[in-house]
């Protein structure tokens, strides 16, 4: 009996741990101040007129993130003017992955004409707050009186290879629903991505 209780406890604690590591849908996001590729500090509050934000953890080197680069840029093109700008954050440590360096981020943004901030999170602080685990990993936020509330977590769409006949554009759908005053019908999705290159702690 005692063992049974113990096992139950372990299961419960494991479960609650998984639930609390990073923001969940409904949580209010703490604003941050990260260095942008233009060397200026960027915070969500910089965009005073935003109705919400599309926070994308993405990077220079992950092939899945690369496959989505143009779609991320297109999201900003389509939705920044409607009040939902894209904020890209690179969660990777350049010490572990040299091609994720600030200079390489600047070069990529120039080459691809990024029209959105591409921020550095050198100590993974914001990455951990969000609970991002991979690139690309999207968090759609809605500005409310209580703060910026997480309304959607997951993939940009269900079609990384752009070959599906049944493509579902999760992020677009979520923003469209939010901007017409509704809650997103799909609040979380999963997709294969590259694990984050965490700083070595030794």
């Amino acid at each position: 009996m005692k063992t049974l209780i113990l096992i139950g406890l372990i299961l419960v604690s494991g479960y609650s741990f998984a639930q609390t590591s990073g923001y969940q849908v409904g949580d209010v996001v703490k604003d941050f101040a990260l260095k942008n590729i233009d060397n200026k500090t960027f915070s969500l509050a910089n965009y005073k007129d935003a109705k919400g934000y599309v926070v994308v953890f993405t990077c220079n080197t992950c092939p899945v993130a690369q496959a989505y680069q143009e779609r991320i840029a297109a999201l900003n093109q389509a939705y920044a003017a409607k009040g939902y700008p894209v904020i890209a954050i690179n969660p990777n440590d350049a010490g572990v992955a040299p091609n994720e360096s600030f200079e390489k981020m600047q070069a990529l943004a120039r080459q691809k004409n990024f029209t959105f901030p591409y921020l550095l999170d050198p100590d993974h602080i914001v990455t951990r707050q969000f609970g991002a685990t991979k690139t690309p990993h999207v968090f759609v936020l809605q500005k409310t009186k209580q703060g910026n509330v997480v309304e959607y977590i997951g993939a940009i769409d269900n079609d990384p290879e752009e070959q599906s006949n049944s493509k579902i554009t999760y992020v677009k759908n979520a923003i469209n629903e939010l901007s017409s005053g509704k809650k997103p019908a799909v609040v979380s999705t999963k997709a294969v991505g590259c694990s984050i290159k965490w700083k070595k702690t030794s």
Partner: protein
Amino acid sequence: MRLFFIICLSLITYSVFGQVKLLSLDELEKRVANGKDTTYVVNFWATWCSPCVAELPHFEKLQLANLKKPVKVLLVSLDFKSKLQKAVIPFVKEKKLQSEVFLLNEPDQQAYIERIDRKWSGAIPATLFIKRDKRQFFEREFTSDELNTAWLNFNK
């Protein structure tokens, strides 16, 4: 001598010049159920995932160290199916992988990620230890030592 022969034979059968078969989750589950006392070490990787590629040799080593035991390393690639001939098979040949290599044959990421492990975010590398009803899932990369420790703990 006979052992050597068996080892060679088993290596040959499993790696007939970079064979990569398609594998659905139903087939994987059937395999585990039929495997009875066999412990399966299922590593999810992709040719485009550098930390995955870096840790593949540790899984190969684990298999070689346990040839006489009921241990089976399955390297399950999450590369796109369209990359099977162009990327996965050439990669397996080039790296001379000795373990059994598969390409996951599942159309829907939403469904298969949840099914492999509810807590998995989809980041790779990821590894599943599975023996009958006992399972342990890792969303992380391993050094050789870390893999051995995790392996020993699972078998405690």
